């Protein structure tokens, strides 16, 4: 498990097997997300020590415990803020954030907005099941209007947010939607997202088989349509992406909605990182001459 990767042998999914097996309910959509993430990392030949998987709290946020990379299982809603700190402290690391819709769009909504605006170079995989699972089935920010849950027994009177529209509006530079029932497609999206230099967001339909009986595997299977199968769709066109993002009903698009590469990621835009390598590897302290200047200016 903790063996040193000494040679450039091709990595396999087995290299990313975590210390413990997932404790998700049998049939949970999150299994598909975990499998796709391991496959993406193996395909990109990213060694376990070169990646950090960071999550908040919730069923899906247990993921870092089930994968063999550096991991941080942080606070509810805070994974993106922690991940920004990790990436800026060592921009050589591949940073992956995983978590649920309640974690990312509810309690963590503010960090979601600002991490997109900052174009922090990381992959954010939202495992969106339209429900609060670990707290045993309450309405979430993506639950549909009218959905009956334990906290909305007569049907929710609040409309859901659309994470893709939100991401487009907030300036995310890579925006996609996946479905855990389409593991190969999801793996490809994750690979693109990891390779994208900037903030990559993948909203993944990851059905909760225990508490969400509205948005089930069959429900999604009937509806999802891959954007990639429409050869006329241009994911560099923001307006087209905005239009597609609002499609919901009998047909729901999945795939890459939007990507732009003309905006520098935060670690590229920040002059402090121009020379000297990752902050984590730099020498601690201030050179004597500089220290003298700092005091001198106060004399």
């Amino acid at each position: 498990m903790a063996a040193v990767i000494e040679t450039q042998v091709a990595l396999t999914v087995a290299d990313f097997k975590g210390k413990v097996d997932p404790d998700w309910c049998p049939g949970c959509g999150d299994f598909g997300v975990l499998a796709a993430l391991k496959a993406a990392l193996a395909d990109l030949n990213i060694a376990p020590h070169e990646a950090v998987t960071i999550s908040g709290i919730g069923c899906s946020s247990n993921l870092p415990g089930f994968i063999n990379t550096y991991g941080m299982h942080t606070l509810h809603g805070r994974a993106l803020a922690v991940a920004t700190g990790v990436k800026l402290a060592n921009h050589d690391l591949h940073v992956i954030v995983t978590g649920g819709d309640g974690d990312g769009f509810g309690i963590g909504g503010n960090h979601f907005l600002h991490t997109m605006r900052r174009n922090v170079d990381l992959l954010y995989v939202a495992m969106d099941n339209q429900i609060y699972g670990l707290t045993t089935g309450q309405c979430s920010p993506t639950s549909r209007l009218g959905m009956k849950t334990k906290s909305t027994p007569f049907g929710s009177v609040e409309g859901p947010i659309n994470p893709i529209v939100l991401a487009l509006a907030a300036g995310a530079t890579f925006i996609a939607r996946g479905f855990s029932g389409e593991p190969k497609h999801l793996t490809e999206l994750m690979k693109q997202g990891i390779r994208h230099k900037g903030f990559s967001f993948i909203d993944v339909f990851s059905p909760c088989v225990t508490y969400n009986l509205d948005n089930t595997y069959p429900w999604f299977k009937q509806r999802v349509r891959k954007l990639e199968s429409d050869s006329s769709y241009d994911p560099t066109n923001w307006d087209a992406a905005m239009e597609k993002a609002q499609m919901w009903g009998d047909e729901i698009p999945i795939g890459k909605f939007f990507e732009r590469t003309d905006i520098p990621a935060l670690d590229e835009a920040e002059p402090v990182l121009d020379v000297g390598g990752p902050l984590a590897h730099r020498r601690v302290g201030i050179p004597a001459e500089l220290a003298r200047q700092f005091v001198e200016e106060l004399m």
Partner: protein
Amino acid sequence: MKYTFAVGIGGAAGQGVATPGNIFAKIFARRGLHLFAYNAYQSIIRGGHTFLTIRTGPEEVTNHGDRIDLLIPLNQDCMDRHLDLLGPGAAVIYNSDSIQPNNPPDGVRLCPLSARQLSASSRNKVEQNTLAVAASLSMMGVGFQTLEEILSQQFKKKGDAVVEENISGARSAYQYATEHFEPFPTALPRTENGYAVVTGNMALAMGGAAAGVKFYCAYPMSPSTGVLHWMAAHARKAGIMVRQVEDEIGVINMAIGAAHTGVRTMCATSGGGFALMTEGLGMSAMIETPVVVINVQRAGPSTGVPTKTEQGDLWQMLGAGLGDYPRIIAAPLDIPDCFKLTTEMHNLADRFQCPGIILSDLLLSEGHASVDPKDLDFNVPIDRGELITSPNGNGEPYKRYLITESGISPRAIPGLPGYVHTVATDEHMEDGVLISDEFTDPVKRRAMMEKRQRKVAGIEAAVPPPWLTGPADADVTLIGWGSTKGVIEEAAEILTAEGITTNQLQIRWLVPLNGDTITGILKESRRTIIVENNYSGQFARYLRSETSFVPDGHIRKYDGEPFMPHHIVEAVKDQLAGRTTLSVPAHEIRV
């Protein structure tokens, strides 16, 4: 008593109180004089009443004192508020074109200047400030050349014409004062020393830089924002990543992310922002990632009085976050200590892999003091603790939370081959695997809790106990914590000079407290009085909870303004006369 001289400058926000303040500070520091400056202001960008007290002297000046020797009111409001409070020997310099005095108290000299007559080109109100400074320097026996140099620097960016205009105006005011106003009986002294003029916030920021902080993040909040400003201005030169974050929840979490990845990290806020950080602080303790948080206290509760000082957050620091966890809390004693304590706190937080909290307040953080450059020595000891920074060559399984006698487990940073692990805010086993979900195990939970808490003994051994200053057998022992050191010291000197011998016990380390040492000292004291800038006696209650010690009396102030020496002196006398055991001094100056 030692010689000091205090100038008070007041006016509406936006009238330029800061500029003459800075000029005086520069002149005093360049003459080798010490100074302390306190600015009483409000949360308003234009208007209101701002009153800056800048006090100087050849020996260390630790507070803004009791007395204004020279008042410079920049508007009628300031004149009306402060004239009555002046004592014999004081002088008032004011622009007689727009400000009229009421009857001054006995022995107070009025020194009117007509800005219109003195300055051919008095186009704006800032000019009257310069004229007043020039007249003041004449009365203080300071040569004109010093001011000329400073004005040249000050107005350099605005061009030669503006420099010339200001200098010629200043010269005529200087000459006018020399001809018309009696100088102060003691000319401003001069020493061979040289001092930097530093705010507590600058000192906190520089302390962080000296300690090797490479990541600083914050959300702007008075009175902590000065730390962010210093960091932002010096970030590129110093190689420090500075980020302004969406809220303080983001701040603490981002800071912990960076710290976990191996860089020294710091953030500063005030009480309200700190409240948002408390869950994150628990994460720091649980995943055992060090982080240093500065709380610059202001008057609460809630938004409170944003521009006023208080020592009201002690219990918030003690109780921040759910559950029991090791934390280190200390309050700097003065402005130079803001620098020193910050460097020490980083070493402790790194060694014990837990949060370190620095409890400053508005008085220190926004106050200005003369600091000997030797006390800003960036070459400080760095102890990163048990930090693993090179790859694991032998393939041994790594246990991030290895159970050890000290409670400290060697910490590997992400990116290193051979140490891959996941940290979790859920309770976990030695290897980081959760025990909180399906594997809950009371034996392991207890072992991990005890492992973390064992660090407390190490922290206690690493932190020096407080000491008593002044005569051991004094009539009165004054106990304070943090920023009240200077004012209590001066009150003790005054009391002792008046025949009431007084000593002082000032607390810097709050957690751990060194309670045994404190009670050992205090049980020898004749009369113990705790002095603090809050309503409920937060330190008194804490001391009692830790040691059962109950003092003879309390002096508390919670009107937003800091103590002045006479507040404490009079309260001690009241208590010695048996009039009360709880004194709440009234603040005479309406600012």
